[in-house]
């Protein structure tokens, strides 16, 4: 086993550290609030109820049907967007002091941050489960697919965090471009609008070729319909494998240089 592989495996095995980073960040986020993590549910719930009231009328859809569609899509998009946006300053700001002063593997911070965001996603699950129970779409198949998705999503988040954080710490201009791209992708990706509303021609570019769509769709379909399209399943799985290889390659190339870019 090469030294790089050993370092990565040791970092994964040192789960005490990255789980604690995740819990600590989550705790600090709500530390002075009376309701704590419940705010995460309340905030999203109020925002999406009002959006649903207007847009379900606009697009002539039943309230609960559209609310389920919107809530699942928005919950996962919010986490994806937060993970990517936070990654832009993960090494340059958020954990710069730790990287400068401690002998820590940068992957620990990517894992910690990704896990924190998955915990936030899980806070939304009770509402999603209520929707599926109301719509009578909760199934064992859906729960199994969701479990698989959460593992793949964590791997993707860690890899993507590392790649983006590394690129952004070297090319600081990227920090700003990623934020703009993510804002744009929110409207391009069918998070608030239904993919059925688009023509066949536009579907290929905006939906089939859009990796973000497949990540949203996998989460949404497994919960709302208990099944996932083969295309989305394959895209999400293959993407995570490609990202693992890419992360390994970048890690091998930059691990000794990274600290100089941080300082």
């Amino acid at each position, binding site marked *: 086993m090469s030294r790089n592989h050993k370092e990565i495996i040791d970092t994964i095995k040192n789960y*005490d*550290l990255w789980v*604690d*980073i995740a819990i*600590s960040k989550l*705790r*600090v986020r709500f*530390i*002075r609030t009376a309701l704590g993590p419940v705010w995460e549910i309340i905030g999203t719930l109020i925002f999406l109820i009002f959006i649903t009231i207007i847009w379900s009328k606009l697009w002539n859809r039943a309230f609960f049907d559209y609310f389920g569609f919107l809530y699942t899509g928005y919950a996962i998009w919010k986490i994806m967007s937060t993970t990517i946006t936070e990654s832009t300053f993960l090494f340059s700001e958020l954990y710069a*002091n*730790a990287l*400068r*002063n*401690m*002998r*820590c593997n940068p992957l620990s911070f990517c894992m910690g941050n990704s896990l924190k965001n998955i915990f936030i996603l899980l806070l939304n699950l009770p509402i999603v489960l209520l929707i599926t129970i109301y719509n009578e779409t909760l199934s064992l198949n859906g729960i199994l697919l969701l479990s698989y998705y959460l593992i793949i999503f964590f791997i993707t988040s860690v890899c993507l965090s590392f790649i983006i954080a590394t690129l952004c710490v*070297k090319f*600081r*201009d990227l920090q700003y471009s990623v934020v703009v791209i993510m804002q744009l992708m929110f409207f391009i990706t069918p998070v608030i609008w239904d993919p059925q509303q688009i023509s066949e021609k536009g579907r290929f570019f905006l939906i089939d070729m859009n990796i973000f769509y497949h990540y949203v769709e996998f989460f949404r379909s497994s919960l709302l319909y208990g099944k996932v399209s083969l295309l989305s399943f394959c895209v999400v799985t293959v993407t995570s494998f490609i990202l693992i290889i890419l992360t390994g390659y970048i890690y091998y190339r930059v691990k*000794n*240089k990274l*600290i*100089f*870019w941080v300082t």
Partner: protein
Amino acid sequence: MLIKIRNLSLVYPLRSLDHYLLRAKIVHSFKNFFKKQKTDESLIKKKNHIVALDGINFNLESNDRVGLIGLNGSGKSTLLSTLAGIYTPSSGYIDIDYKSSIPIIQPYSVCENDDTVKNNIIVIALLLGFKKKQIMKQMNEILEFSELVNYQNLPVATLSQGMKFKMVFGVCFVLDGKKVYFIDEFFTTGDEKFQNRGFDYINQKKDCIIMVCSHSRRIIQNFCNKVLILDKGKQVFFGNIDEGLDLYNDIIKK
């Protein structure tokens, strides 16, 4: 235990300057475009790197207490960071067991001010490479040594700088298992009484190697048995205290 350092060099790349240079070049070209008399672009000099450490050689043995001294910018903190494994040397050889060493370089910079003292102790200790089981086992010992038992559930923001120092000191030295300590100048933060108590505590640790970077002669004379002097990244002296401090006086006078 033995630490061997041979021909250690560190070339520090100044990557971030490239962006400023690119911006400066664009501004320069733009200004030149409107000028009749052109100015030389080579005036914007590009410096790619600095040699932060050059040809460092020494051996350390168990129970060595080494004072690292030098003027500002001489490479003391960089040497500590390199020995601690934060920077990878550009050339040379370091024989050290990283798992048994601990870098104590501004550890309270990672404190979460809103989180409690107890939670911060856990996070700092984990980042320093200790195991959670051990941290929890020795938590009371850390709190008692740091005189923070009554503050354990209060936010770190309520602590003074000196109290934060005590907390970090407790984390670094009370927890067992480390044999090599690389200590940066942060020791000067604590009051003299606690500093002396801290050094007495460290001195009781058997078979440990401690390298402390300080401008304080008192700390070097009272605590160390060897001294390493750096000047502009180069090793000027490694040996006994009195001879080293005399040489350092000469460097200061220059």
